[in-house]
C-alpha cells in the first residue's frame, strides 16, 4: 500500500537540499549547539522551572495543582487531587511526551484516562512513583511529578479530533517564529500529541494562522485518520496571541532555537504547555517545507528588532 502511494523509498540528498530540509545532524551541530547555551537547558528541561518562569513573565500556563518530589508524598496524592475531575500528571524532566498521564474524568473510585481506560488510584500512585524514580527523565535521574490543570480544549477542535488535547508547536529561532504546526491526537496516539506516537501534524502558515497540509506517520494526509474531517484550510483562532506567547517564551528563556508548545483552552485561550530545547524535525513534514531556508534568512540578519511585534512582523514578511 505504502509502496504504491510512494513508489520511491529513498530520495536523493540533493532533492532534500533543494527543499531546504534541515537534517538531524545539522540541527544539532549548527543550530542547537550554536544557539542554545547548555546552561539554559534546565529552564526548559525542568517543566516546573519553566512554569514558574512563565508565570513571572506574564505568560499564561496551565494552573499548577501540586508537585510530588519524594516517594513519601505519594500518600498525600489522593488528598492533593481533591475532587478534581480532570488533571494531568507529568514528569518535570520528561521528554518526548513520555510519562504524561491525562485523567479526563472520575467515576466512583475510578479514574478515566484520556484514552478512555479506567484505572484506580493505585495505578496513578505507581505512575507517580515511576516518575519520581526517574523512569521518564533523561539519564534516569530522580525526578518530580507535576500535577496540573487539564486543558479544556477549544470547541473549535472538537469535530476534528478524536480525543485528547491538540497542541500547537512553534519553532522560534532567534526570537522569530519560523515554523508552526498543530498536532492532533489520534486513537493510535492514545490522546497524546506526539507525532512519533501516532498523532497527526498539520502545518500552519505563520502569517495567516491557516492550516495547509497534514502528515500522519510520515505520510501526507488531508483528513484526520479517525474522524475523516479535512484538516486543511482551518483558521486557528487567536493566532496573533499564539505567536506573541511563543516569541515571549523564547525571550524569557533565552534559547535561540526553541520549540514552544501551546494549547488552546476553551476559557483561558492559548496556554504555554512546555518548551523544548531540541524540537523535532517533523514540523517540516507537516508544512511540506524545509526549515533551512528561513533559518538562514534569519541568521543573515545581524541585529533583529527588540520588540515582539516587530519580530512577528518580520516573521510574517518572511512567510510571503
Amino acid at each position: 500500500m505504502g509502496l504504491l502511494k510512494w513508489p520511491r523509498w529513498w530520495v536523493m540528498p540533493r532533492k532534500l537540499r533543494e527543499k531546504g530540509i534541515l537534517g538531524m545532524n545539522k540541527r544539532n551541530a549548527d543550530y542547537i549547539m550554536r544557539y542554545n547555551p547548555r546552561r539554559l537547558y534546565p529552564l526548559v528541561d525542568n517543566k516546573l522551572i519553566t512554569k514558574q518562569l512563565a508565570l513571572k513573565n506574564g505568560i499564561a500556563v496551565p494552573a499548577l495543582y501540586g508537585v510530588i518530589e519524594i516517594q513519601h508524598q505519594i500518600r498525600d496524592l489522593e488528598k492533593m487531587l481533591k475532587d478534581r475531575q480532570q488533571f494531568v500528571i507529568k514528569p518535570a524532566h520528561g521528554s518526548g511526551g513520555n510519562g504524561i498521564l491525562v485523567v479526563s474524568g472520575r467515576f466512583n473510585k475510578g479514574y478515566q484516562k484520556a484514552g478512555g481506560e479506567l484505572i484506580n488510584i493505585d495505578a496513578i500512585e505507581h505512575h507517580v512513583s515511576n516518575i519520581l524514580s526517574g523512569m521518564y527523565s533523561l539519564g534516569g535521574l530522580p525526578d518530580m511529578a507535576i500535577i496540573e490543570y487539564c486543558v479544556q480544549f477549544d470547541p473549535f477542535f472538537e469535530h476534528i479530533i478524536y480525543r485528547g488535547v491538540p497542541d500547537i508547536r512553534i519553532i522560534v529561532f532567534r526570537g522569530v517564529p519560523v515554523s508552526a504546526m498543530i498536532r492532533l491526537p489520534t486513537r493510535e496516539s492514545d490522546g497524546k500529541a506526539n507525532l512519533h506516537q501516532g498523532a497527526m501534524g498539520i502545518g500552519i502558515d505563520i502569517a495567516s494562522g491557516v492550516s495547509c497540509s497534514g502528515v500522519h506517520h510520515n505520510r501526507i494526509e488531508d483528513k484526520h485518520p479517525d474522524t475523516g474531517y479535512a484538516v486543511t484550510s482551518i483558521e486557528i483562532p487567536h493566532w496573533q496571541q499564539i505567536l506573541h506567547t511563543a516569541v515571549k517564551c523564547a525571550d524569557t528563556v533565552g534559547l535561540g532555537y526553541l520549540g514552544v508548545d501551546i494549547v488552546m483552552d476553551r476559557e483561558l485561550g492559548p496556554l504555554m504547555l512546555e518548551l523544548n530545547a531540541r524540537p523535532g524535525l517533523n514540523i517540516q513534514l507537516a508544512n511540506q517545507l524545509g526549515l533551512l531556508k528561513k533559518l538562514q534568512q534569519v541568521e543573515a540578519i545581524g541585529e533583529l528588532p527588540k520588540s515582539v511585534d516587530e519580530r512577528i512582523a518580520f516573521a510574517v514578511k518572511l512567510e510571503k
Partner: protein
Amino acid sequence: MNKGIVRFWAVLLIALGLGIAFYKIYYLGLPATPQQSTEVWTVQARLVFEGEGKPAKAALHVPDVTPGFLKLDEDFISSHFGLAIDKTDGNRRAEWSVRRAKGDQTLYYRVILARSDMDQTWTSVPRYPKKPEYQEPFASAIKATLDDVRSESADIGSYTRELLIQLNSAQPNENVQLIRGQVGTDNAAWVREIVEILKGVRIPGRILWGLNITDASNRATLEPLLQVHNGKQWLTFHPVTAAQGLPKNFLAWRVGDVPLYELEGGKNAKLEFSVTKTYEEMIDIARKGAKQMNSFFADFSLLSLPVQNQNVYRLLLMVPLGALIIVFLRTFVGLKTFGTFMPVLISLAFRETQLYWGMFLFVAIVSLGLILRFYLERLMLLLVPRLASILVIVVILMLLISLVSTKFGYERVLSITLFPMVILAMTIERMSITWEENGAQEAIMQGLGSLAVACLGYLVMTNENLMYLMFVFPELLFVVLALCLLMGRYTGYRLSELRRFRAIVAEDK
C-alpha cells in the same frame, strides 16, 4: 570555523597515527598483516674438548656483523663455565672459563637468524698495507699481473674483480701459472695469497669466514671469502668466481685470520657447526628485531607486556572500533539502538559465545525477560527494585539456559557467564518502556537494530586482521579518534532522513 579546527586536528591525528604505523612497517619491519611466517635458521656451534683437571679457558669467535641476517636470539650454553664476551675489530669473541675442567666438556653457541634487509656492515677502517718484498721469481710475476690489471680498471672494486678474473682465468698466462703453483686448491690459502698480492698495490684486503646456511645440515664448515676496503667500505668477493657481494646465504662469522677457537687447559678440541631451518611468525621476528635495534617504538610496544595482559589489550583496543561503528550508524545511517554503546558491549559478549549462540541467547533472554517484565509492571514495583528483579530474572534465565543446553550437550553455553547481565537487564527495561510509550513496533525495531549493530560490531571486532592491526599498531587509535572528530562535524543528511522526508519531495510531482 569550527569545522576548520576539527579538520586540522583530524588531519594531524591521522598523519600522526599513520606516520607511526608506516615507520613501524617500513623501518622496523613489522608486518602489516598477521600470520606471515618466514624462514628462521638456528645455527649452532658446538665446541667439545677434554678437560685436564686444571683451569680451562676456551674462546670462540661468534658472529658480530651479519649483513643480510638479523640475529633474533643468542644463547651461550655452558654448564658451569663463566662467560665473557668482548668485541675486537670486526669480531666478537666469547670466552668461557672454569677453575677446574675434567673429562668431556661441551660448550654451545646458538644463534637464531632471520633474513633482513636492515643495513648493517663492517665499520672498521684498515690502515694501508706496506708494499711487501716478494721473492723472485714471484716478484716479477706479481708485478706483471698487477700492471696488466691496472690498465683495465677504474676503482678498487673493479680492480679487485679484474685481478681475480685474471688469476682464475681458464687459460692462465705464465705469470698466473707461477702464482697459482705456489698455493694448492685450498681456498683459504688462495685468499691469503690474493691479500698478499693486493698489498703490492696497497689495497687493504682480508679474509672473511662465513657459513653457508642454505639447508639444514649437521656438517657445515666455515668458508673463506675475500674482502677489500675501498676507502669507504669493505667489498666482498668470491676468491674463485670473482662474484662481488655477499652470497645470499652466507652468514659472516669472523673476519681476518684470527683463530676460530682457542683452548687452554684442555685437549682434543673439536668444533662442529649445525644449521636447522624452521618457520616463525613475522611478528615475533619483527618484535625481536626491533628490540635489537633499540627502537623507542619497540620499547613502547604492547608486545612487551606480559602475555595475559596482552589479551586484555587485544580486546580493549577493539572497543574504539565498535564505538566508531556506532558513531557511523548513528550520524550517517540514523539507526536507533537501545543505549548508545550497549551494542558494543553485546558484541564483546558475542566473542565469548560465538555469533549464532550469542544472537540466540540475546533474543531468548530479552524476550523471556520482557514477558516477565510485563508481569512485574502489574505488581507496580519501584524502579530500582524492579531493575534489580529483572537482573535476578536475567541471571536465572541464563542459568536455566545453561543447564538445559548442557543436558543436550551444548557446552558452548557455559561461556555465557561473561554475558553482560546488567546490560541485558537495562535493555529489557528500556525495551519495555519503549514498548509501552511508543508501541511494540518501535520497541522491536530498536531491539532488532541493537542486535544488528551488535552483530556488525562482533564481525568487525573479531576480524583477525583488524585485531592484529590495532594491537601491533595501537597508534591507529589516533586515526579512529580523527574519524570520530570528523564524523562529529558531519551536518549532512542521515540515510534514514532520505526516507523520512521523502514525502515532501514526492509531493512535487
